[in-house]
């Protein structure tokens, strides 16, 4: 049972974090994109499994319906962004796991973001052309 003193301290938890630090946001975005990608994979597996459950015709019809929907069509760009961010920040975290870059974690983050932005913009250009 938490003490009353602790409860008072807990109540201010949301405004008692380090919100103006690169590492904090890198971590938050990593979590958010991670959850997003898991949800996408579940949807993806469900969609693919319709081909087994209800046959080729039904699968084609579902896929056509989804991919001709303009909102879903452009949401793919969001998906690509999430994959790029999660992947590149994942590499940053792997570097730490092998003992590289602790004193340069912010620089590594921004370098990864520049690289990610170039990759994402290239995908956008290809998709819109």
């Amino acid at each position, binding site marked *: 049972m938490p003490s009353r003193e602790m409860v*008072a301290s807990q*109540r201010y938890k949301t405004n*008692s974090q380090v919100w103006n630090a690169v*590492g904090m946001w890198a971590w938050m975005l990593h979590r958010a994109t991670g959850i997003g990608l898991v949800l996408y994979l579940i949807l993806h597996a469900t969609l693919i499994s319709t081909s087994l459950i209800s046959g080729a015709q039904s699968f084609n019809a579902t896929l056509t319906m989804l991919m001709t929907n303009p909102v879903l069509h452009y949401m793919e760009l969001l998906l690509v962004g999430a994959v790029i961010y999660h992947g590149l920040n994942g590499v940053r975290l792997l570097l730490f796991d092998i*003992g590289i870059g602790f*004193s340069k974690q912010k620089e590594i983050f921004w370098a990864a973001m520049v690289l990610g932005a170039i990759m994402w913009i290239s995908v956008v250009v290809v998709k819109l052309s």
Partner: protein
Amino acid sequence: MSLQEINVKIFRYDPEADVEPRFDSFTVPVIKNMAILDVVMYVQNYVDKTLAFRCSCRIGMCGSCAMYINGRPRLACRTQVSSLGTPDITIMPLPNLPIIRDLATDMEPFFEKWKKIKPFYVGKSELKDPVAIRPDSGEREFIDQMLDCITCGCCYGACSMVATNEEYLGPAALNRAYTLIADKRDAIRVERLKAVGRSYGVWRCHDQFNCAEVCPKKLVPTKSIQQLKKRCVLQKFGVFK
């Protein structure tokens, strides 16, 4: 930037008397080289004698005066008012710890975790003191840096992993564990490693770097924790003895 006076908002809470915490506002005249500790001392001396906070050495050695100042845990004595770049200052107690009163927090959970890693050196029985470690051997290079910890609790207050799980040992205790485990003369290295190599030990760290961001001694506990993770894996494979 030169300021004439600053507006200070201070967190007030007496668990024995108040139902809810509140913020009190004060206007404090600025003196040259004024630190946040001078600000709270001014308030206590001249405005409101009931303000509670903790301090001791006033030169960043004792680690008593850590507070949550304008969005991050800092040592009040080592934080210059001018360095904050604003006349509006909010001071709260160190997060993730129970509040005794106002800005004074109870460090007991922090030191309970500190105790769990057995924070003292245990020499191997076959070693005869003094054991010489040559300065140029490089063995103590990283250990010596990490020994600068003053247990102020800034990292503990900044860590989201501590905030979301009260069992997590926290950056300071793990950093201390590393300085002992990495010492070849230590007799209970494996025992210590088993204490930290759990899900609420080193594996709870998510490389967020908030600890390194706020450490007044510029330590990087994330690096110590990574070194511990490495040793935990090596120990599982029987390489670390």
